[in-house]
């Protein structure tokens, strides 16, 4: 085999013209699924040793920086985000720190597609696919949670005020992308609350 080509789930797919938000795939993200008990001090300190940061223990929150961010998935599950090139190294560090501690860390960098949606009105676009109240104060930057999106499971992460990442399993990437394209068409734009024309 000559060289190692790596293809992202949405390789070659571009957003159609006329969308009310901007849309792209994020391809360089490494992901590690980490399981262990949030109540297990040995686990927590081993992870801290390996990652240099505390796991977020509050539901639907995340911790860390742009380079290394940990999303809370459950009381005993986290998703570690890092540059793709660092994933193997971080996984190795984690595994060695966790030797003897009941846990499971798996590289899942290729398991999901990440769709970034940004721009004013992106909450409304997302609300065409989820029953979550994205206008609620909980959905501020750093917040993350799993959700049902259209007909599939997804993970939502609030990056900035009008910037959201939607994680879906790789095989559904095209479906999720097409769904967002269908609901984000400019003529279908919805702006919730705030000044409107009066129904004269």
């Amino acid at each position, binding site marked *: 085999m000559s060289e190692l080509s790596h293809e992202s789930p949405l390789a070659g797919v571009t957003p159609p013209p006329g969308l009310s938000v901007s849309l792209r795939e994020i391809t360089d993200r490494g992901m590690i699924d980490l399981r262990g008990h949030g109540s297990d001090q040995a686990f927590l300190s081993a992870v801290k040793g390996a990652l240099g940061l505390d796991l977020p223990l509050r539901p639907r929150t995340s911790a860390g920086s742009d380079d290394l961010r940990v999303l809370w998935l459950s009381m005993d599950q986290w998703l570690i985000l890092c540059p793709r090139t660092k994933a193997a190294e971080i996984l190795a560090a984690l595994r060695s720190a966790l030797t003897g501690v009941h846990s499971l860390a798996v590289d899942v960098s*290729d398991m999901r597609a990440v769709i970034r949606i940004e721009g004013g009105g992106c909450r409304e676009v997302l609300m065409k696919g989820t*029953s979550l109240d994205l*206008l609620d104060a909980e959905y501020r930057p750093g917040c993350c949670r799993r959700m049902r999106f259209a007909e599939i499971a997804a993970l939502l992460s609030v990056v900035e005020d009008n910037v959201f990442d939607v994680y879906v399993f790789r095989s559904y990437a095209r*479906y999720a992308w097409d769904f967002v394209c269908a609901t984000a068409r400019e003529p279908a734009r919805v702006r919730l609350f705030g000044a409107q024309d009066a*129904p004269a």
Partner: protein
Amino acid sequence: MSKPYRLSAGGSRIDRNRRVSFSFDGRQLTGFAGDTLASAVSAAGQRVFGRSFKYHRPRGVVGLGAEEMNALVGVGEGARHEPNLRATQVEIHDGLTAVSQNRWPSLTFDIGAVNNTFSRFIPGGFYYKTFMWPASFWKHVYEPFIRRAAGLGKAPEGRDPDSYEQIHVHCDVLVVGAGVAGLAAAEAAAKAGARVIIADENPVFGGLADISGGAIDGLAQADWALAKARTLASAENVHVLNRTTVVGHWHHNFLMLFERVADHDPARLRTGAPRHRLWKVRAHQVILATGAIERPIAFANNDRPGIMLASAARGMVERYGVAPGASGVLFTNNDDAYQTALVLKAAGVAVRVVDSRARADGPLPAKAREQGIPVDAGSVISAVNTSFGGLSVTDVRIASYRKGQGRVIKETRAACDFVAMSGGWNPALHLWCHNGGKIRFDDQLQTYRPDRHADRITAVGAANGSFTLASILEEASAAGSRLAGSGNVHPVPAVMQAGQQPMEPIWFAPATGKYNEGNKHFIDFQNDVTAADLELAQREGYESVEHTKRYTTFGMATDQGKTSNLNGLGVLSEATGKPIPEIGVTTFRPPYTPFSFGSMAGVLTKDLFLPIRRTAIFNWHTAQGAVFEPVGQWRRAYTYPRAGEDNHAAIAREILAVRNKVGLLDASTLGKIEIRGPDAAEFLDRMYTNVFSTLKVGKCRYGLMMNELGFLTDDGVTVRLAEDHFLMHTTSGGADRIAAWLEEWLQTEWTHYRVFVTPVTEQWSQFAIAGPRARDVLKKLAPSFDLSNEALPHMSFVEGRLGACPVRVFRISFSGELSYEVATPSGFGLGLWKAIIEAGAEFGLEPYGTEALHVLRAEKGYIVVGDETDGTTTPVDVGLDGLVSKKKADFIGKRSLEQSYLKGPNRKQLVGLLTEDPGEVLPDGAYAVRQVKDKPPMEMIGQVTSSYRSPTLGRSIAMALIENGRARMGETLSFPLPGGKVVRATITDTVFYDKEGAKLNV
């Protein structure tokens, strides 16, 4: 016969400077921007809009909006046609085409109208009593006739070219209806800081404010409403929605709002706007300000074109500048309707009032008299006369009346060309009742009002039975503030409104003629249900109001009884002598008004209708012209036909490639689950029927899973990665289910197990390289590990690299050949796949699809869960007793295998079958019979589970579940097929190819 009725002035909704041209029944007409189809067609002098359901009587406009039950039209053409729209709600635009319905050949001359002539023979429920002879006639003669006659409008033709969508929104307060009550409530709630949505079905906010007289804060009601609508629209915490009907209320304050985004505006539709949008709203509090609906009066022939509700008549004049006719009679039992007389008079239309109350002397009647409007108190309309065919009213008879009087005594004749009627008002309780709200009968208003509700929902204004401006505004403001969580009540505006005297109910106006016989007092106009029909149902024992409804179809038309329900109860009350509350009410069900199926589908049609799952190789398969097969939501390559090849030939070629050379299969869809923890092995022992705790690290084992009923549900190979770490494979269809199943047992039953489970199906692309040359292909890819049979024997596992590509390699086989399953992170999947194809070329490697896979495994007698098993099959049935542990104390399904029937005699057992004629392929699912007979029934003893033409063996093979099959080796069975042919096949072992497994261990 028709004359234009557009008044020279007036019409708050229309813009006389913008002409709009449209067509009705092919006739080109013009109206003004702001007109409804009802107003514009009426302005052109046309009265008849359609024909009724059963008797095909000509019908005109009765209502002003959602309550309309007669003037139903079809709008649009071809694939854009939409039937059964209320003309009162259709906003006209240039180019709109509308047609009338349920008439043939034309509106004015309709053959179906003979039904009216025979109406005496077809009372409510008549079809239950006849059409029974001869029996076969129902299907072929009577029913087709009935079906053609019924049914109102026509369906569109072709696929809907427009788009739809949905959105979820949460709010603190949802206000339904933007009349004065809704506006006041929304304002109070918004002022208190709540996130408010206010929705109204009409294009314009204000409800009936513009036709109800009175003033608020010194402004005419309509102006006040307009100002409030503006304030709300500009507020940061309010979302206003017009043309949006709240169609239903469900548990826990879930409501559905149906927004007509672009129906009224083809230009907007052309830009690509969705036609409809469905809002799914979860509201903390709901305020129902849905107003009230005026009720008709049951008098003889009250359905004639030109007879309409009083509110509709005044709406026509005030909103659209259209006179309902040249001279009219207003028939009322309440003061409010006098406003209609005043409005008509002011517009120059002659009018007289017939009031069923003995006295009519409130301020409004007094004013009417002052204006010179004749008022006949203590009177009713006792007959309506029409022009030929019932197309228009020529005059009515007015008879004196005392409450409770049953027959007509003294009559006078009054010429008129229209009648306005008002029998009082019913609060629009529909949404209140959708989700179990209780209601109570109000003796003064003679109608039902909201009572208690378990959900957080409050009714205000006319919807709550409050009809004076002062009470409406007071309760609406109070509710708005309170429900928004504010202690301060928003100041209630000051009002000015004429006082009113109480109404008096009249459920049935006596008619000319003996006992009112032969007269039709319509209760449910659209379904042609008369007072006599309701009485007949009572006489025949259909006493419960629910029986009456179903026997007569009263309240079941497209208006769902908005104008008829209470009148019907009134008639039933008089017929039975029971007070109305004892009659009971039928159930209100969503939707409030019908809404499109398209909006329920939203964007989830065509490609977005149920997701398709794609492997990393999907595009490659497509480019190769693969035929696909859905497996769960996956699309898997079924076979790869080459030019000139049909599927059969392609599959045979692929199979032989695997048997003789080497093949490549995209097996990425297989479920993959990582399982780790000190108790992982013990946990697997519980989940599988066979033992996993004895598996050596680096080795693979095939396992079976049952459900608790003892039936097979999944199978697959699990590898032990480390002492405490396993990687489980499941079937493609089972991946998510099994992962959830493992979690469930860990969380709910064996909570003390220290095990973590992480599904990783999609992390990996996985390919089977199978065939005698498989090792050669892999070797060429420069593996970082030893591929020899000694180092990597059958059922073992290694992790390493193929060239630069990270891989996990499982030496397992579902084809019976030397075979490696190679997994690589999905991003590398396509690259590795292509590399394998390239490396394999010199060895004759061919990609193969799922059908070849199935034949290959059948040749080896391997089962497929779902083919050889069907949800009632145990491992023992399919001959895998060896994989059911006798030693383990407990595993899932173990106890059920002990139930008498599961271990009883005569179970169907899996066997192989060889047809006597090797060229004959038994159909899938064919049954063997104990004894062939001339004709059915024949006793069945088992069925074919898989059947193929085996290119390897050059003959057909099959597997079957046969009663006591294993004891019948060598026996020949008969399979009677359609057309009388009987195929005979001999029972054999299930392994047809390489029984010793020699090919596996090379």
